[in-house]
């Protein structure tokens, strides 16, 4: 397949899904089929993309026949291909899971259209090579997530929606403003061209200021300290499949944007930005994990853990060695699978145990021992216990930070791991281990009678847990891929050459 097709198909599949689902809005069954087919299409296209770039080649395509850097470029390298693949995987797993529960109510409110819209924005953001285009994909992702979050329109959701929408709108507007300043300084928006122009600028102090603006705006998207408040205020009000896909993808797009811009564009003044990112990473890990310790709603605990885990993904930029960036990539991949799975299991706990509130559930290990095992795999992986995927990703980032002499960062990472374990054990004790409350027998019987719901909800959980185990037990290819992707990110010339076709002269900064 040509590069054009490889890079556009992962975006085309959800785009077609959006259009067809909107056309079939009065036929819920048809929408389900289209949505699943589009998600499967995305998964297949992303596998093809990964196979094309896994040997280290970078592929690029230009839209509309414009010569670079004037048109919009799409670029696929090892990092973006891995992110697209994991998006495809999540699209299918959560898409299947989303077919139960209150699906009819959600379908009346364009659930499938918005779901595919979210995937469209996310894959577009991973593949684009143009910073203004990245803004547009962010907005597509945002407007879909606004719709998904307020789907149902309960009082709780409207309240959460206000905070989520306001803070995210401010963040994206700030992003656009940063893009405007960047354009004013460099005269270009193409990221490969920016990578060539930025080192030639005279006023490097201004570049550092701009880098911090981008750090703030992407940091707000990634929910880092002190910009994370929209996340724990909102996530727990959405229904289980929606919050699972949010938890898997939304903040990770912010992390992707931070890693991409700080390896490709703003790597000039790492001595200044490095300590800032280090402090942000430490505070993010610690506040997130302490916030989780205070809560007894399983969704709110998990929401705070998203924040906490984002801190580990910043190790790559904080430490800025090839090993650390590779470790960050591995961490993102591992975390998406594990976190989505935990939210899916939270949905099962709610359905079988009757509540998301840990104080009102219990005894699930007695009635469903297999679910207990399925919970322990992602939960212990999140805490970083061997031999699960979390161990290898934590091991890599902490090894990298120790090698570079970041003792405080490494210590914080290890301590937060222990506190994470505390939270996971709390969920285990309350939902699985303690005796069931008196009134829970009825919900359990209803769950056990509903064979279809059990199969649909548990099969994605089993598959994701199997992937976590696979990464843990056969870590070698995954670690190797991530480390090579990290090295590729640090070698900017491959990215630039892929967009411009051949090694080109550095152009003068345009007005």
């Amino acid at each position: 397949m040509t590069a054009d097709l490889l890079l556009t198909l992962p975006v085309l599949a959800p785009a077609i899904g959006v259009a067809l689902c909107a056309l079939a809005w009065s036929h819920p069954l048809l929408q389900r089929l289209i949505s699943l087919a589009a998600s499967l299409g995305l998964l297949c296209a992303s596998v093809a993309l990964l196979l094309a770039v896994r040997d280290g080649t970078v592929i690029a395509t230009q839209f509309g026949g414009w010569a670079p850097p004037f048109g919009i470029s799409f670029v696929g390298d090892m990092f973006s291909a891995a992110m697209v693949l994991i998006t495809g995987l999540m699209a299918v797993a959560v898409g299947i899971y989303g077919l139960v529960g209150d699906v009819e109510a959600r379908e009346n409110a364009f659930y499938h259209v918005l779901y595919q819209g979210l995937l469209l924005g996310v894959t577009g953001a991973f593949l684009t090579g143009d910073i203004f285009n990245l803004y547009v994909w962010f907005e597509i992702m945002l407007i879909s997530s606004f719709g998904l979050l307020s789907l149902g329109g309960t009082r709780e959701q409207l309240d959460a929606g206000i905070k989520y929408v306001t803070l995210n709108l401010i963040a994206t507007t700030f992003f656009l403003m940063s893009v405007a300043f960047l354009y004013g300084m460099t005269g270009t928006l193409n990221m490969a061209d920016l990578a060539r122009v930025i080192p030639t600028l005279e006023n490097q102090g201004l570049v550092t200021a701009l880098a911090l603006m981008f750090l703030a705006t992407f940091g707000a998207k990634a929910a880092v300290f002190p910009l994370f408040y929209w996340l724990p205020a909102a996530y727990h009000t959405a229904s289980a499949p929606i919050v699972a896909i949010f938890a898997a993808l939304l903040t990770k797009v912010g992390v992707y944007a931070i890693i991409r811009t700080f390896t490709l564009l703003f790597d000039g003044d790492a001595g200044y930005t490095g300590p800032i990112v280090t402090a942000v990473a430490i505070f993010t890990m610690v506040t997130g994990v302490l916030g989780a310790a205070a809560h007894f709603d399983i969704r709110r605990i998990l929401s705070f853990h998203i924040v906490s885990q984002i801190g580990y993904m910043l190790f790559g930029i904080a430490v800025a060695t090839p090993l650390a960036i590779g470790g960050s990539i591995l961490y993102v991949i591992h975390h998406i699978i594990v976190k989505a799975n935990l939210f899916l299991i939270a949905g099962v706990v709610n359905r079988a145990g009757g509540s998301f509130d840990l104080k009102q559930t219990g005894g699930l290990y007695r009635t469903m021992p297999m679910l207990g095992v399925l919970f322990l795999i992602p939960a212990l992986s999140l805490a970083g216990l061997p031999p699960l995927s979390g161990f290898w990703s934590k091991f890599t980032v902490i090894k990298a930070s120790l090698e570079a002499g970041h003792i405080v960062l490494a210590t914080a990472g290890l301590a937060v791991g222990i506190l994470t374990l505390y939270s996971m054990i709390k969920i285990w004790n309350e939902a699985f281990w303690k005796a069931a409350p008196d009134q829970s027998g009825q919900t359990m019987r209803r769950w056990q009678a509903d064979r279809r719901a059990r199969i649909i909800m548990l099969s994605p959980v089993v598959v994701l847990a199997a992937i976590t185990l696979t990464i843990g037990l056969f870590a070698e290819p995954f670690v190797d891929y991530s480390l090579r992707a990290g090295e590729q990110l640090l070698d900017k010339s491959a990215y630039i050459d892929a967009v411009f076709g051949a090694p080109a002269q550095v152009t003068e900064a345009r007005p």
Partner: protein
Amino acid sequence: MEPVFALAFGVMVAVAAYLLMSRNVLRVVLGLLVLGNATNLSIFLAGRMGSRTPPLVAAGETALVGGANPLPQALILTAIVISFSLVAFTTVLFESAHRRLGTVDTDAMREAEPEAAKKVPNDRRQAAARKMEPAE
């Protein structure tokens, strides 16, 4: 001209920041609108304001000579459409929240994150909400 526009941009951002910090959601929407427009102005400024000639390539020519920079215009057009739709959505969301929650005061909106220890008595909360009602 550019310093004047830059100053206008600064004033708009300041106004937006002031409005966004308000507890009244109506003012927050206005703040988002002003911030969006300030951003559009910054894109316009970033493209330099040298020429007033429309960016049209004359017949027989292959390159643009002496015209205004067309790229910021395209960017602003995109940004206007996006910010228009987002603000429209936000307004509808805020209005339905106002109807369902009975308040426009963000401090009184504690449905998603209820206070654990001290419960604000309901009538006091509503009194606070009434005070925040925009004038008819």
